[in-house]
């Protein structure tokens, strides 16, 4: 074994290094760069949306194109930015955190990454097709989605292959975590980031095939004469919504759980104090994951379900507040009586805790069926899910990038610029999304290209916040490039209070790490 490993010790160079890569670090890097690119493509679409909504009347785009921006923005951000960024972090960090030499299935790892660029090329190419890109919302509700032109089959197959990619990624993570932990790294000794990712991987495997099934039924409804979702043929348009959200709700946690893991790693580091309630964090994460399969219909309280169904889904949804609350309190208690410093990753993590909690509050409100009849499908919902996904998931991903950049590049990033990036992002995103609560309560539905003049003021404020947020993210790219090119050398232990095996290897992490399992001491397993 050792001689074999020795033969492969050289790092391949050039294009081959990236196309044929089976190295978890290179694949992780590619995932992260891809996610960042998609973040800007999806962000550009958000800029078009906010420009059109800047004032009443149609100024820039037609309603049909506007709808396709709304649709593709969501697909790109969810499947192209947040999920791949999470998988990229998992690739880079999980083997380093559990003392494994690589992912368990390196060739599959290569394939699950390289599907993504093709999948998104296919999705984005629909914008140039006869009839335009998908424009019925990312939720793809029939019958509307069946009115789509030539883009329809491309949309369906995009979903299929992205699903294949994600499922392979999930299998890989599960196989790695269950088989490749260094001796002594028991499950309850694993860093919380690893735990949240294992649970996320199970969610992916359980929910994505359901989604693939639902979109396949759409495909046969359109081209092969079936009537799964066509009432005139004996089918049920609402069935799609049930099946979709059976996937869709766990998907929400697929985006959020890795963020919980990141924040649970960073807050103890900069509080110089162990994570409070490790075991309860693990159980809370698992509870949230299990509950996520029993709350799907809260996305569709207004479809006209029987009252018993509405009550069940209301109670189950409200129950999620309990484990989520436990997490927030644990983060608070971790900070309590610590010796905190406020480097950029810590700032993003604290903002995550506050702003994600605000999103959780509006989530509790939305979960109460009778009052949801007012909030549903309004900008209140738009504000809610952007609080949990942008100031939630994306802030956590930013925190992770700053936190591990020294390990990835071997250099410290520019702390001053990082802090400027944080403050710009935090202020702009609140100017962007907070007024949307007011718009929704006042009666503005989501997914409309134009609106009554009573909504004009807050839309303009929101757009200004949107442009500011968009521009500030360019600073992040500059900081990352600057850090990759040089700067202050990072130590192996880049952060004073950091715990975990990733800080025992040099910075930048060598091409191969832990080729022989590390000997773990009690101190190394603290978290």
């Amino acid at each position, binding site marked *: 074994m050792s001689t074999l490993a020795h033969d492969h010790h050289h790092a391949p160079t050039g294009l081959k290094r990236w196309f044929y890569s089976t190295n978890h670090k290179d694949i992780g890097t590619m995932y992260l760069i891809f996610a960042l690119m998609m973040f800007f493509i999806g962000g550009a679409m958000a800029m078009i949306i906010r420009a059109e909504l800047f004032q009443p009347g149609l100024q820039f785009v037609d309603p049909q194109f506007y709808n396709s921006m709304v649709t593709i923005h969501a697909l790109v951000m969810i499947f192209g930015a947040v999920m791949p960024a999470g998988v990229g972090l998992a690739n880079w960090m999980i083997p380093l955190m559990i003392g494994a030499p690589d992912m368990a299935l390196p060739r599959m790892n290569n394939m699950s990454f390289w599907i993504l660029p093709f999948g998104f090329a296919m999705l984005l190419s629909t914008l140039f097709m006869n009839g335009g890109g998908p424009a019925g919302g990312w939720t793809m509700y029939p019958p509307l989605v069946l*009115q789509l032109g030539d883009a329809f089959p491309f949309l369906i197959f995009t979903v299929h292959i992205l699903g294949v990619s994600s499922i392979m990624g999930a299998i890989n993570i599960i196989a790695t975590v269950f088989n490749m932990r260094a001796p002594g790294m028991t499950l309850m000794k694993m860093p919380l980031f690893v735990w949240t990712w294992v649970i996320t991987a199970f969610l992916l495997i359980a929910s994505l095939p359901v989604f693939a099934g639902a979109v396949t039924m759409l495909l046969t409804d359109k081209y092969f004469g079936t009537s799964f979702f066509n009432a005139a043929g004996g089918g049920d348009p609402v069935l799609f919504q049930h099946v979709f959200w059976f996937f869709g709700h766990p998907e929400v946690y697929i985006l959020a759980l890795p963020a919980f893991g990141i924040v649970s790693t960073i807050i103890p580091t900069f509080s110089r104090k162990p994570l409070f309630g490790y075991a309860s964090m693990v159980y809370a994460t698992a509870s949230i994951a299990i509950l996520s399969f029993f709350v799907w219909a809260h996305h569709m309280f207004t479809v006209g379900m029987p009252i018993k169904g509405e009550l069940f889904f209301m109670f189950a949804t409200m129950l999620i507040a309990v484990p989520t*609350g436990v997490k927030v309190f644990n983060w608070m208690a971790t900070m309590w009586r610590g010796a*905190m410093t406020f480097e950029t990753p810590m700032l993003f993590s604290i903002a995550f805790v506050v702003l994600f909690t605000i999103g959780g509050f509006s989530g509790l409100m939305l979960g109460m069926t009778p009052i949801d009849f007012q909030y549903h499908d309004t900008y209140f919902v738009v504000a809610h899910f952007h609080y949990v996904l942008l100031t939630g998931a994306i802030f956590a991903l930013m925190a992770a990038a700053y936190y591990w950049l020294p390990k990835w590049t071997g250099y410290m990033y520019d702390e001053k610029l990082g802090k400027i990036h944080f403050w710009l992002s935090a202020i702009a995103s609140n100017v962007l999304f907070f007024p949307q609560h007011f718009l929704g309560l006042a009666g503005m539905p989501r997914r409309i290209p134009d609106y*009554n003049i009573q909504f004009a003021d807050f839309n303009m404020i929101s757009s200004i916040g949107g442009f500011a947020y968009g521009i500030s993210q360019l600073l992040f790219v500059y900081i990352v490039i600057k850090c990759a090119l040089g700067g202050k050398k990072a130590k192996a232990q880049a952060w004073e209070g950091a715990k975990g095996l990733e800080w025992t290897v040099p910075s930048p992490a060598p091409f191969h790490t832990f080729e022989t399992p590390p000997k773990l001491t009690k101190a190394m397993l603290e978290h």
Partner: protein
Amino acid sequence: MTKFFKTSIIKFFALFLIPLSAIADWKLNLRQGATPISQDIYDLHMVVLWIVVITGIIVFGIMFWSIFHHRKSKGVKPATFSHSTTLEIIWTAIPLVIIISLAVPATKLLIKMDDTSESALTVKATGYQWKWKYDYLEDDLTLYSNLDEKSVELSQRVAGVNPMEYENYLYDVDEPLVLPVQTKIRILTTANDVNHAWWVPDLGWKRDAIPGFVNDNWTYINEPGTYRGQCAEICGKGHGYMPIVVKAVSMDEYKTWVAAKKDAQSAAKASSNVTMSKEDLMTKGAAIYKANCLACHQAEGQGVKGVFPALAGSPIATQKENLGGHIDRVLHGKNLMPKFGEQLADGDIAAVITYERNAWGNNTGDVIQASDISAARK
């Protein structure tokens, strides 16, 4: 524009200076609405809003206190505790108690909203791409409610229109839904083509309108007035352009209105059979085109490439031998094109076809009369 921009900025910062109640015209909060149910919803909304605000103040307060005091720069030595079973039980129990105390009133309200029995009047709202059809089931009256003409003009993507001058922009219709006050009214929602959602915020709820399904709901409007809302489920290109306007009047006025409306409809039907001059047909046709056809086929009949065919210069609207096909298409629809035979009177269809065959350089000179349409219907 710049002035508007400036005042917006000033208003935004002013937000932080004035108590929330003083800026009523900024509509920060949920509407109280016009029905007992919308008031109940508002009350429950306020309860949960205050609960989350107070929870937020406590949680973030403790967190920020810690952030200000427990920092390394103040020379603090970090504590080493990492769990406390008592604390963890407490902060699992407290949220549980809060959500149970919220679930009880929510359940009561939901049960109240669900009871559509003993309603005095039933209206069926059917969503179309992109308009609403209202059937008054007891009074045997049907209305189609389109976006009003002024909003249509102002919502085009052309220079020189300014919606800011029009208070009811995208919030007005040609035919409002007239309902009596102080009466329990059952409102059924369904759809003809794709999912829509019927929502008037002042009535307190929205409900999806789904083809092949009928959802039932009810309302009881306290005061006469005009209540506005719009479609709340994405339904394609015209999703933002299908408002709902409810005009609530006294029962007597409602009865008078129904009688008058029915007379007007039968009079219109009778008069639509008369033969009209080409000029009159063109004027009438232009108005009907704007209300019914423009959303897809566009202001200049140019259509939307790949989705909605152009009419300007197209064979069906220009060639003599296709006249029959043209009439047939309007009457019976095809794919996304609805069956306008169900929605419009013969004279209206004759006028709009005459308009389509002579506008935008089509200049066929064809004149179609109501009698041609009634003949085609047979």
